[in-house]
């Protein structure tokens, strides 16, 4: 992969996971208490990736309680009645387990990568902290500080982050998706240990979780083991507000000049319905994104970078694995000597997208399909990738069947479907934004 594209991705698509799914040996079952389990077999090495995905994330926080879900994720490592503070990490370490967790808008996931002989330990610990978390006030205070340090290190130290946080607020308006996942510093400071406990009690239950095991194990072996540790846990009545559809009609722009920023970056975000109600289907938008800006052979790369030489990098992504609205994004680094204004860049993009769609035909569709499907074989290879894929999609209410039939979904798309997706996209509410070096302050030719 081109180095520029890599760096580009690091700042632009924090969660723009390219979804290619299908083609693994997987089975599912649900315990009586509602715990949904999926086992993906991969017998290459005697290892297992174990992931538990709770369907709770930052969008489930009350307004002003930003950072709650993420701080709770940290506290999940700080002790239960049976595993005192510090011992969780010690047990993981002495068993050679790679253990971590992450929080997003829609979910919180805890995961371990371990030798297969350690699986029961993982299950016992995960079951124990599903209902019996018991952290001390000291642990709470230390974790609160750590999370603030985390925000400083990973967000505030990055000169681009102010821009992306503002962009999200503007794009999503009043929706919880507009707030940063980890909350603002003042919000984190205002959280209390009791906030944590109440949120935990409400959302951490077997019927709000998906357990994915991927590796040297089959469902027949896994089921009794999972039952042994999880079956006695009580289900909870989960009440969750459905995220509102955030599509008001708007066409906005944002321009920011920030210190330490060295190059111009252009972002366009289009707000689309949730994948369930996308017309004609979300598969058409996946192909549209791939056709326009997927890699160094895409239409926009060919035309803007190779032919016109007006940009040095371009990519498109379609983020649809979410409980809320889907987002279609275009990111571009214009060549500095050709950049004049945000308006001109947006017009240029529109012109090139329009041209690309005029030449879109059957043979191009087939070509894009082949590109999208060619990498699926690698999901059979890496048990960690497979676990991530299955968990990520199922935590956002995809069924295992939908995941397995990904290839069919892609193959069923016709040229007019992609054309229709393009038409819908052009009608969608959108935000166009430019991040500029401070030398551009006051605009350039605008």
């Amino acid at each position: 992969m081109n180095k520029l594209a890599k760096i580009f991705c690091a700042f632009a698509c924090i969660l723009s996971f390219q979804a290619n799914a299908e083609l693994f040996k997987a089975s599912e079952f649900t315990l009586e208490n509602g715990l949904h389990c999926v086992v993906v077999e991969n017998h290459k090495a005697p290892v297992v990736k174990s992931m538990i995905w709770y369907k709770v994330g930052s969008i489930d926080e009350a307004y002003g309680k930003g950072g709650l879900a993420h701080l709770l994720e940290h506290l999940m490592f700080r002790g239960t009645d049976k595993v005192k503070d510090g011992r969780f990490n010690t047990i993981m370490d002495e068993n050679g387990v790679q253990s971590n967790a992450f929080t997003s808008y829609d979910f919180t996931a805890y995961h371990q990568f371990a030798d297969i002989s350690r699986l029961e330990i993982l299950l016992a610990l995960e079951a124990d902290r599903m209902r019996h978390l018991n952290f001390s006030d000291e642990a709470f205070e230390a974790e609160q500080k750590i999370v603030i340090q985390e925000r400083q290190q990973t967000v505030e130290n990055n000169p681009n982050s102010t821009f992306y946080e503002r962009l999200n607020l503007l794009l999503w308006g009043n929706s919880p998706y507009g707030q940063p996942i980890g909350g603002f510093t003042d919000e984190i400071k205002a959280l209390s240990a009791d906030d944590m406990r109440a949120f935990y009690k409400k959302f951490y239950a077997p019927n709000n979780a998906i357990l994915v095991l991927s590796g040297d194990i089959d469902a027949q072996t896994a089921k009794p083991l999972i039952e042994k540790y999880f079956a006695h846990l009580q289900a909870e009545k989960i009440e969750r507000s459905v995220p509102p559809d955030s599509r008001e009609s708007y066409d906005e722009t944002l321009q920011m000049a920030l210190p330490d920023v060295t190059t111009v970056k252009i972002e366009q975000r289009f707000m689309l319905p949730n994948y369930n109600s996308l017309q004609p289907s979300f598969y058409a938008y996946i192909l549209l994104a791939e056709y326009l800006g997927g890699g160094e052979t895409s239409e926009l790369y060919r035309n803007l970078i190779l032919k016109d030489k007006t940009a040095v990098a371009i990519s498109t992504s379609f983020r649809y694995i979410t409980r809320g609205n889907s987002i279609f994004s275009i990111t571009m680094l214009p060549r500095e000597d050709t950049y004049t204004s945000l308006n001109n860049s947006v017009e240029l993009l529109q012109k090139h997208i329009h041209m690309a769609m005029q030449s879109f035909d059957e043979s191009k569709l087939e070509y894009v399909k082949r590109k999208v499907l060619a990498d699926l074989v690698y999901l059979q290879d890496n048990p960690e990738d497979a676990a991530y894929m299955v968990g990520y999609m199922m935590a956002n209410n995809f069924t295992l069947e939908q995941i397995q039939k990904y290839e069919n979904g892609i193959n069923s798309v016709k040229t007019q479907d992609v054309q229709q997706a393009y038409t819908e996209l052009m009608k969608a509410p959108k935000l166009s934004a430019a991040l500029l070096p401070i030398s551009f302050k006051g605009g350039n030719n605008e």
Partner: protein
Amino acid sequence: MSKYKRRQNIYKKLFCLLSLFIVAYLTYPKIVKYFTYLDTDKILAQSSLQNKKFTQKTQEINMDGFSAYLMEEHSVPIVSLDFAFKNAGSAYEDENKQGLTSLLADMLTNGAGENDALAFKDICAEYGIKIGFEASNDYFSGYMITPKQNLPIALKLMQDVLYHPLFDEDYLQLVKQQLLTILQMQNEQPTSILSNKFNENIFAGHPYSRPDLGKSENIPDISTEDLREYMQNKFAKNNLLIGMAGDITAQEAQEMLNTVFAKLNQSADTNGLSKLSLQTNGTEYNVAKKQAQVMTQFAVAGTYRNSIDFYPLYLANYIFGGSGLGSRISSIIREKEGLTYGIYTYLLINDASALLVGSFSSAPENFDRAKNLLLQEWHNMAEKGATQEELAQAKKSLLASYNLRFASTGDISSMLLSMQKFALGKDFLDKRNDYIEAVTLEEVNAAAKKYFRLKPDFVILGNITEEEN
């Protein structure tokens, strides 16, 4: 009589009560423990899932003038190849051509043989073939991973890349433009700034001190002739290391090696760099910048992979700062006081330098405390060393994680390559657990004494702002 009997009854009751107390006293902790302690050792001992060792063997394939390691793994139809030319990384560029290897790495996949850049990338994308190159300090390396059924196509592409790269002038201009943009954007990222400043100060006077990806002043002057000459001089059989894994037999591997590498020059025109020996005395190199957190990277001299100090120091470091959240410094500085999001140390070993390195970042008001706690623990490690318990736990961890290195086909081939970079031998995987187990506490503490007595130099970013400066 009745009085006696009553008395006897009282004694009886007392005795019963006493025995109840004794029984309760003896069993209570167990009962309490049952309800309040999750015994993971017991779970492990009783688990039906027993230890299995990954048993595929490392094979050595000998060719005319070069050789490769292969591990067959036929459960997934994928073939992976990782290779590297030794003494051909960015530290081997001419001083006024810094960035040459970065450009070369990108240009190699921008057209070769009959395929221009677009055609080449189209074939890769449509057939799920991944081919790429990169340069570290010491090595210029490449990889190819492909579905088995597309192996012939992938091999043809590799052949073209190594013997008939197009180096189209238009593409060179584009790749230069992209590289210059990356170098410019590195100045936005504190981690890149710190890493370049670290190299500049810690490796001062040595080619390792050069910036990661090149110098913007040098890049415009690098020509396609320079790229060709570099390949001609630095890519040869006698400095080539290869790791292969996946759905191929030894015979197929041999054919594959023949197709891709047989036409390379016999020997490369390159010599190893002079070894750098780092002397530190607690110097602080401060880099002014206004930012949310102060960040630092620090270093002392370490030891090479094949030295007798390696495993003892590896374990000492693992206990001190290498194991993650549970390491000594992470427990004290992160978990207990919340002074940082992460703090860790590791052994940084190149062909011409061996260091013990660490890093953390912290809010300006916490930075000095975090640094002082680190230095206090650093001192304790040198003076008191590790405990038997810590060593046992570290060994247990490293033995239990053995199998994780075989998760994907690409993991395996790149591991086989690094075994050769460090000259660990074909039988390394069979012996690795024994190496770990054999280390004694005395050896660990002797290594701790030797290396943790050295005073680390710190490269610090953001402790003073430019205005203050």
